[in-house]
């Protein structure tokens, strides 16, 4: 089934929320539409579904990896070049703590950044019908709409108060 993107632009948040209500009444699931805003709104403000993400796993994985690498570096360098300096024994824990600590946190931070980008579904191509007015406070409701329902959705969005509705030109698309 071919789908095309359709974007309704709303000047106020109430209209967007009503559009979302209408979409839900018209059997659209929360994977089929998304609300675009120029700033964060409280989660679920437009009645969109709960967002599942696994961001919290990333820092743990990163920390584990960073820890492992740092420990290997710590042990490896000391074992391959075992010179006792300042009376501090080879492989003594207190000074090893520090590089291990930095390595662990570096791993955790790198993976968290990756996780944020990845879980935000970025990088992605900006849809052609994206409208710069969204960053000026308009609220966009973008629907991945089956071809045969385009007119219906257009009407529904306009009824909810959309000031502008844009259709994705031509070919099938996904959002």
């Amino acid at each position, binding site marked *: 089934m071919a789908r095309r993107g359709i974007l309704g632009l709303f000047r106020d948040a109430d209209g967007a*929320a009503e559009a979302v*209500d209408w979409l839900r009444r018209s059997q659209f699931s929360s994977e089929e539409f998304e609300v675009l805003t120029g700033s964060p*709104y*409280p989660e*679920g*403000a437009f*009645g969109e579904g709960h967002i599942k993400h696994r961001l919290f796993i990333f820092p743990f994985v990163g920390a584990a990896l960073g820890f492992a690498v740092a420990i290997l570096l710590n042990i490896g360098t000391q074992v391959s070049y075992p010179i006792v300096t*300042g009376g501090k024994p080879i492989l003594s824990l*207190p*000074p090893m703590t520090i590089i291990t600590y930095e390595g662990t946190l570096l791993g955790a931070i790198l993976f968290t950044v990756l996780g944020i980008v990845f879980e935000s579904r970025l990088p992605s191509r900006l849809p052609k019908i994206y409208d710069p007015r969204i960053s000026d406070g308009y609220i966009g409701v973008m629907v991945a709409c089956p071809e045969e329902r385009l007119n219906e959705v257009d009407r529904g969005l306009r009824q909810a108060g959309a000031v502008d509705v844009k259709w994705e030109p031509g070919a099938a698309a996904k959002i």
Partner: protein
Amino acid sequence: MASSQEVTRHLLGGGRGRSPSFWLLVGVLTVLFGAGVVGLIIRLQGGFHERSVWGYYAATVAYLLTITQGAPLVAVALRLTKADWRRPVTRAAELFTVVGVLNFFLFLPLLALVPSAQGRSTVWLQWPWGAPHVWDTLAWALLVLCGLALLYTSVLPDVAAARDGATGFRQRVSAWLASHWQGTERQWRVQRGGLVLLGVFYLMLFVLVHTLFSSDFAMSIVPGWKDAIFPPFHALSGLQSAVAVTVVAMYLWRRAEGQPYLGRDQFWALSKVLFALSLLWFYFWFAQFLTMWYGRLPIEQTLLQLLMVGPYRVPFVLAFSLNFLVPFFILLWNPARKSILGPTLAATSILVGTLFDRIRIYVSAYSVEESAAHILEQVPATRLPDGVDILMVVGLVAGAVLFYVLAARLIPPIAIWEVKEGLYLRVERLFLRKGVSVVGKPE
């Protein structure tokens, strides 16, 4: 949501604390406290010539100082930062000031154990007179007085509410305590300003007392122990335990009375603070340990022996685990942090850990023989607690609990005025399709 009148009625509650189990608790605590006092009397009869037998007593005093006298700062800090969730928490924390009174009297015998600062290495350097005894006592007394003033200022509007609602004996006491309070706008302004000022003074005195007590009553006793981070570490441990003791008090109290005001929000918010303070605990300890370990100076190696890895390694390992490792691994997990049980477990662990931490510091320091040496050469052997020590530790801690329980019986253990203020500054609303709470920020 409860109305203002309901809050007052509920919190001033007629039925509160009249149950037999309450009196049973008070009875048990009184017996234990009595035993502790007996232990102290036995020890006093032994005299002060041998310092080492007082190690566990000093550890207990330090322990009570650490866990209870920082608690009002929880209330102070949360009020200063205008944390909205603090409202039901503050009084539970503030009430711990009453323990300070008991603690002050427990502190006095220790004075006989510490020689004058003249001719020794102390923080008093060449101070001409009265160091450390007079000034330490004065600082501690000021701390306790300031705490009581803070408590009184905070309690005043609630006592007035009790005056207007109660009968008989309580009515008369309340009327005497809250004689002028009518709740005029000017009175509220003064009360708020007073809370801020007294809070700031209390914080300064708290840090001062920790600094003086830890340096005069532990560090200066051990020849050659020069350790700038030890007083801040002692005070930080006081803050960590303060949050912990507040959490535990909140939990017990919730269990005992089914408080509707102390909810997950409060535990969750405090758990974050607790987590941060546990990390800081490790940080301060590590800064001390690493510098001493890395330097390889003979005296510093001996000190590490004395305080950490030598005869007191068991209490040290316990303290390290219970003050840092256990809370860290519990509170690392989001679900645990967001629960009520998680923070409570971590806090309990911290309270136990702090006892061992004070034991490894004070018992070891007090077991060092008095000598003219400038540097500690021999690490003394482990000193295990005898029967009297155990009586004192258990009994005096029970005494502290007793003071707290009785105070909570007399004083509304939730700041009624603060909760009521929250009632109209927090509104539940619908934001488009989502229910949110809206928090008012006056000023």
